[in-house]
């Protein structure tokens, strides 16, 4: 057989019969686990896109009640500390053009800066802000507007997936003078490690399996997940993004739990290699180095962020504008007091556990970061809320 990508996507998106058969397999493994005495299986995902697929296609409602899918730290927008957004707002109001991904445009800060609590509010107050799809688009825009715009900063949000889009132009001297990067890049495996240990520390039901992010793993490979899986003695499957990819990955995880196997398997074989994309990693670590970085509402996680290396400080917004990163000793949680994003991000709570969910906090007027990005867990739950599918899911989870 030879399959084209369109065929595979069609099969994995639309073939109800296949989805049903995978669902039957999941039920079978679950029965087996129950017979073995495991009647709650908690599987954590670390990717906003996986959470989107899960909710959009109602995956939770397809699973036996014993299987709980929880969302971990899966979206770089949600975990970008307020301080960085505040700095970007301040610069924009001082006439420095800020480039931002659409996802982060409405991200709320905890403290207002000159009356603005987000970049979108800063724009309304006359701040210079431009929404772009990529660093490359910002480079193009900056070149075309040279003269009108003298200095600009790119709000460099992202996980490993996005890091090469900054590293390639910087390494190859493609960035025009006057355009700076404010790196808020964060790394996924250290956060996964942190979330898994938080679950144990707080005495919550342990996580029994991991669905690892497909596009992050395209860059870093499956190997880092192998390490984490062995540390926590649980299976991990690197998954693709179609609904049947996800169901298949869950079935694989359950089978591995039945066989008491730890370690990693790759379902998203069409793009993920065990060792990742070596050239991408080379670019990344030629341009950046790891540091102990802050996560919104969570605090500092060792080796979880990327900073520009000395030889590239000419592009560094921190250096150029004297911006200080948050410090560990003076770190205060940067969320609205009632917002439960930190726990939602760590998979310790669900959006419906937050008293503000769909009341004071909505996608139109977000109070917390998880309600902003298209892939923020609260936003995903809210967007499909009020309608049939989300109600069904919530009911099947016993939430509403």
């Amino acid at each position, binding site marked *: 057989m030879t399959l084209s990508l369109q065929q595979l996507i069609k099969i994995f998106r639309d073939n109800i019969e296949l989805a049903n058969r*995978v669902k039957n397999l999941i039920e079978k493994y679950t029965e087996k686990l129950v017979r073995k005495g495991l009647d709650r299986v908690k599987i954590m995902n670390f*990717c906003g896109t996986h959470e989107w697929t899960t909710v959009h296609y109602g995956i939770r409602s397809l699973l036996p009640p014993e299987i709980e899918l929880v969302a971990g730290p899966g979206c770089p927008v949600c975990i970008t500390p307020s301080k960085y957004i505040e700095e970007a707002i301040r610069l924009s109001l001082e006439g420095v053009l800020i480039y931002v991904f659409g996802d982060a445009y409405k991200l709320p800060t905890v403290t207002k800066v000159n009356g603005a609590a987000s970049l979108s509010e800063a724009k309304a107050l006359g701040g210079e802000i431009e929404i772009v*799809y990529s660093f490359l688009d910002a480079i193009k825009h900056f070149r075309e507007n040279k003269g009108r715009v003298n200095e600009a900063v790119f709000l460099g949000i992202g996980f490993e997936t*996005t890091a090469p*889009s900054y590293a390639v132009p910087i390494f190859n001297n493609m960035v025009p003078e006057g355009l700076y990067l404010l790196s808020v890049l964060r790394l996924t495996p250290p956060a996964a490690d942190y979330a898994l240990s938080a679950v144990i520390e707080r005495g919550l039901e342990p996580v029994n399996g991991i669905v690892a992010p497909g596009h992050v793993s395209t860059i870093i490979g499956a190997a880092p997940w192998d390490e984490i899986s062995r540390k926590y003695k649980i299976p991990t499957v690197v998954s693709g993004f179609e609904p049947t990819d996800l169901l298949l990955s869950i079935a694989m995880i359950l089978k591995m739990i039945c066989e008491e196997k730890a370690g990693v398997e790759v379902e998203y*074989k069409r*793009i993920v290699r065990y060792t990742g994309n070596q050239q991408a990693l080379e670019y990344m670590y030629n341009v950046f180095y790891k540091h102990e970085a802050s996560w919104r509402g969570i605090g500092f996680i060792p080796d979880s962020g990327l900073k520009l290396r000395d030889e590239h400080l000419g592009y560094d917004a921190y250096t150029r504008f004297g911006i200080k990163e948050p410090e560990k000793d003076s770190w205060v949680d940067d969320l609205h007091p009632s917002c439960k994003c930190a726990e939602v991000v760590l998979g310790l709570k669900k959006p419906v556990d937050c008293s503000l969910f769909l009341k004071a906090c909505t996608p139109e007027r977000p109070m917390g970061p998880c309600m902003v990005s298209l892939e923020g867990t609260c936003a995903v739950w809210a967007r499909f809320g009020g309608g049939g599918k989300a109600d069904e899911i919530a009911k099947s989870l016993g939430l509403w």
Partner: protein
Amino acid sequence: MCWGVPAKVLETDGVMAKVDFGGSIKDVLVINTDIKPGDLVIVHAGTIIGKIEEEELDNTLKLYGDLLRDSLIEDGMDPDEAEKNVREWIRYLLGENRDG
């Protein structure tokens, strides 16, 4: 935020490439030196983050086939029979979606 979109590479020039997203043509960054015209790739934030290995597409369905076969055998089906069953089912899936 890490949406990856499949595209076909039209031409490459050093660290830049022109790709076709099903009709809309864009300039993107290239990480890997072995990317060439005709390759099917995944683009994220204006950058080709990886190549879709077309041989591996079959393997994803095979993963499913393996699970199904194991489970049939576990249910007591004879291994040859299970193998036949899996093949037929996959052939059916492919046939159903021929013109995808």
